[in-house]
C-alpha cells in the first residue's frame, strides 16, 4: 500500500464513521452516548488522512522505503492488513445492516430484569394508556408482582419474535455497549395477541398486566406476560434498542 492509498483508505474509514454518527445510522450499532466520541474519532481519522495525503503530495520525491517497507521486512503482518479496513467501510457505507432483530432474540436468553433501585417501584405517572419500556414492565411484573400495574392501561412497543412453541412474543434488544453484547428482553403475549404477523414486525400493543409468567428455555430466566387488548403495526423507532 503506498502512502497515498493509505491516506485514501483512512479518509474512507473516517468518512464512514462521521457519516454514521451525524445521521442516525450509528444507533443501529451502538448506544447514543458514544456519538460525541464517534464524531471526534471521525474528525481525527479524516485529519490523519488529509495530512497523509498532503505530505505524500508535498514530498512527492521517489520514496523507495515506503514501498519496500510494505512488501518485505515484516512479512505477513505488514500494513497490507490495512486493506481489511475497507470491510467496515463497505459495511457502513454500502450495506448498512439493520439493527438486531428476532434472529438474535431467539439466539440468546432473555435478560434478567433486575429490580431497579432495590424493591421500591414508584407508582406509574398519570395517563391512560401509559407507555412503558419492556424492561420496566418485566421488572415490575417479576419483582413486584405487578402491584404498580394493577388496573392500568399500558402500551408496550417492540418487535415480534416467535417462541420455540410457535407463540408470538414481544421483544426488544437491550444494549450495554454495542450490538455484540445485545441481549433480548422478551414478553409473552396473552389475549388478543398478534397472530400471523411476520417476525421482526414492529408493533405497539395496548392492554394490561397479566399474572402469568414462564421460563425462557434458553437460559431459564423468568419471562413476564402481557394481556393484549389491541395492537397495531408501527414503524421501527429511531432508537431500536430498549
Amino acid at each position, binding site marked *: 500500500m503506498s502512502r497515498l492509498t493509505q491516506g485514501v483508505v483512512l479518509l474512507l*474509514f473516517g468518512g464512514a464513521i462521521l457519516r454514521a454518527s451525524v445521521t442516525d445510522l450509528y444507533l443501529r450499532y451502538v448506544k447514543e452516548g458514544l456519538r460525541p466520541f464517534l464524531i471526534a*474519532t471521525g474528525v*481525527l481519522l479524516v485529519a490523519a488522512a488529509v495530512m497523509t495525503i498532503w505530505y505524500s503530495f508535498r514530498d512527492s520525491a521517489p520514496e523507495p522505503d515506503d514501498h519496500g517497507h510494505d512488501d518485505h521486512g515484516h512479512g505477513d503482518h505488514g500494513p497490507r*492488513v*490495512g486493506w481489511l479496513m475497507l470491510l467496515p467501510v463497505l459495511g457502513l457505507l454500502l*450495506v448498512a445492516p439493520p439493527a438486531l432483530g428476532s434472529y438474535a432474540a431467539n*439466539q440468546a436468553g432473555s435478560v434478567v430484569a433486575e429490580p431497579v433501585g432495590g424493591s421500591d417501584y414508584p407508582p406509574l405517572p398519570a395517563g391512560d394508556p401509559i407507555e412503558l419500556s419492556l424492561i420496566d414492565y418485566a421488572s415490575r411484573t417479576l419483582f413486584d408482582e405487578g402491584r404498580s400495574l394493577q388496573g392500568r392501561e399500558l402500551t408496550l412497543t417492540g418487535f415480534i419474535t416467535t417462541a420455540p412453541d410457535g407463540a408470538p412474543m414481544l421483544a426488544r434488544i437491550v444494549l*450495554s455497549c454495542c450490538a*455484540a453484547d445485545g441481549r433480548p428482553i422478551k414478553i409473552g403475549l396473552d389475549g388478543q395477541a398478534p397472530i400471523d404477523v411476520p417476525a421482526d414486525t414492529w408493533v405497539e400493543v395496548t392492554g394490561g398486566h397479566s399474572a402469568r409468567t414462564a421460563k425462557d428455555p434458553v*437460559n431459564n430466566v423468568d419471562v413476564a406476560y402481557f394481556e393484549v387488548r389491541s395492537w397495531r403495526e408501527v414503524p421501527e423507532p429511531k432508537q431500536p434498542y430498549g
Partner: protein
Amino acid sequence: MPPSSLDTPTPQRAPERPIGSLEVLAVVLVLLVVFRGPLSDLVSGPALQTWTTVFVSVLVQAAPFLAFGVALSAVIAVFVPRSFWSRALPSHPALAVPAAGLAGVVLPGCECGSVPIAGSLMRRGVTPAAALAFLLAAPGINPIVLTATVVAFPGRPEMAVARGLAGLVVAVLMGWLWLRLGRTEWIRLPHRPELDDLRKWPAFWAACRHDVLHAGGFLVIGAAAAATINVVVPEAWLTSLAGNAVLSVLALAVLAVLLSLCSEADAFVAASLSQFSLTSRLVFLVVGPMVDLKLISMQTGVFGRRFASRFAPATFVVAVLVGTAFGTVLL
C-alpha cells in the same frame, strides 16, 4: 514551506509502476459500488444479516478506543522523550512491573487501545515486562470498567473489588513471569522508518496513519471472528455446562476468549449469564480483557506471532487460576 530539494518532478516516475495500490483501490471501490445491489442481497439471510450487524457494531464501538489508543501511542512515540520513562518507572524491572500495572488504573479505555500503547512504550525503551503488565492491567481495572461492573451487579460491589484485584494480580504475575522466562527475541516490533523523522508533526501523523491501518486491520479480523461466534454458538449449549463447578469456570473462560467483548460491556453480559456461579462469572470478567480473539489478532500484528502464541495461552492459564482463587475467597 517545503524544502526545495523535494521538488523532484514526478511524471517521469509514473511509467515505472503502471499498477500501484492506488489503482487497485480505485478498481475495488468501483466494483463495490457497481455490485452494491447483489452484495446487499447476499447478506439478506437472517444469520448473515446478524453477523454483519455484529461485525459492524464491534468496529464502530471500538473505533473511538482505537483512535484514542493510537493517538496516545503516537504521542508517546513522538513527543515524550525516552528519558521520561527511566525517571517515571522504578529502575529495577521487578519493581517497574507492579508500577506499570497500577498505571493501568488511570487509562480509561478498553483493550483495543492498549495494544498500540504497549508497543509504543516498548519502542521507547520501557522494559517489556512492565509494558506487558500495563497491557494486561489497563483494560480490566480502569475506573470506567469497574463502575460498569458495580452497575451490572447491583448489591454485589465485591464483584468489582474481586475483578480489580484479580486483574492487577494477573498482570503483575505475567510481568514477573516474562522477566523470568520471556525472551526478547520473541517480540518482533515491526520496523518503523517513519518514526525516525526528525520533524515532530509529520512523524506524529505517520504514526497515527500506520497504527490505525495496522491495529485496525487486525481488529477487523478479530471482529469477524467474534461476530461468527456470536451467530454460530447458541447460548442454549452453555446452560448444560452450568451445573458443574469446574466445567462452568472453563466454559465461561473459553466464552470470554471467543466473544471478544469490549471490557466496558462484559460485566452486563456476565450479569445475564445468571445460571452460572459467581466465581465462573468472575473468571469471565478477568479473562476477557486480557485474552480474546481480537486481542490475539492485534498482539500478533504488533508484537509478532512467536510472542502471541506463547503469551496468550500463558495469560489465559494464569487468569483462570487467579480468577478462580479470588472467586473462591471473596465471593
